């Protein structure tokens, strides 16, 4: 019984963290690697980007395994939210909640992600669409430029004690801090 309750509750970081490392290990053992942003490049190629740049001219069939991992992640999100959770709301620091409310995020205590950005009404708000689109653009562009995202650099690269991954991870944090501390007050 306690086991089921534990699974339904949010998972503690000291359980999830090792499980992420285990994910990386599983992929290494399968003869592959743990890097989710590569899928974005593969999707570009599938959409015909190889006609526009040699960056996308590679045999994407070699990356099919990673697309399957991506599909698995989608399924995982479905299973976790629908069958392993009962309206999971992150237990955010009350100070954070206050700051979010001041910025107009009322849903900080009732949702997994802000309803203001990810609720159904998002599609009819030009500002929200722009925020989501630009957020995605920055992630996609930045990940390819850096040659990886948090999975490829912050987990895989750093686990291998690679300095480039440390630089990338430091970059991730500089970017995030700039966005939250300097730009959010202008946006929200």
């Amino acid at each position, binding site marked *: 019984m306690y086991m089921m309750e534990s699974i339904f509750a949010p998972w503690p*970081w000291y359980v*999830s*963290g*090792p499980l992420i490392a285990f*994910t*990386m290990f599983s992929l290494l053992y399968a*003869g*592959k690697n743990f890097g989710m942003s590569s899928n*974005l*490049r593969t999707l570009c190629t599938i959409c015909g980007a190889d006609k*526009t740049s040699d*960056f996308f001219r590679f045999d994407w069939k070699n990356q099919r395994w990673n697309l*399957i991992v*991506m599909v698995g*992640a*989608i399924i*995982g*999100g479905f*299973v*976790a*939210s629908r069958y*392993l*959770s009962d309206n*999971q709301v*992150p237990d*955010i620091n009350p100070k*954070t909640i206050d*700051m*979010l409310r001041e910025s107009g995020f009322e849903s900080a205590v009732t949702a*997994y*992600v*802000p309803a203001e*950005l990810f609720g159904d009404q*998002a599609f009819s708000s030009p500002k929200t669409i722009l925020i*989501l689109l630009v*957020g*995605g*653009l920055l*992630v*996609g*562009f*930045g*990940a*390819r430029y*850096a040659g990886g995202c*948090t*999975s490829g650099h*912050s*987990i895989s690269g*750093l686990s291998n004690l690679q300095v*480039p*991954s440390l*630089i990338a991870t430091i970059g991730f*944090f*500089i*970017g*995030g801090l*700039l*966005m*939250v501390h300097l730009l959010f007050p202008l946006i929200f």
Partner: protein
Amino acid sequence: MKALRYLIIGTFFGIVMYKSEAASWFRIYEMFQFQSIHMYGLMGSALAVGVLLVQFIKKKSLKDINHQPIVIASKEKSIARYLFGGIIFGLGWALAGACPGPMFVLTGAGYLPILIVILGAIAGTWIYGLLKDRLPH
């Protein structure tokens, strides 16, 4: 191509991402406000175990399931691409509250507006491909 094993690993990863709240915009915001140890603990413990596992792989010269040596690709020495690319990524990570893995997890969880983020991410990837020869690496 042994699709099933990748599907299982991916599903496992997706579940962990959701339950750990690494896919939560609120948790990412909280992280950049330094108002919780949660995300730092998550990444730190993943790293701690990851370092040990990679050391184990190297010490034992562990072979993968196909009896091939496990090799983690080395990364080209540089600062510019990792720093600039990293900062740009970080800006987006905080704005959208999601990096690539969580984007897919949130799709499965039914938050359809994340598809706009994914569209942007694919477009951003494409734009990089077009501009890369003009960028410092």
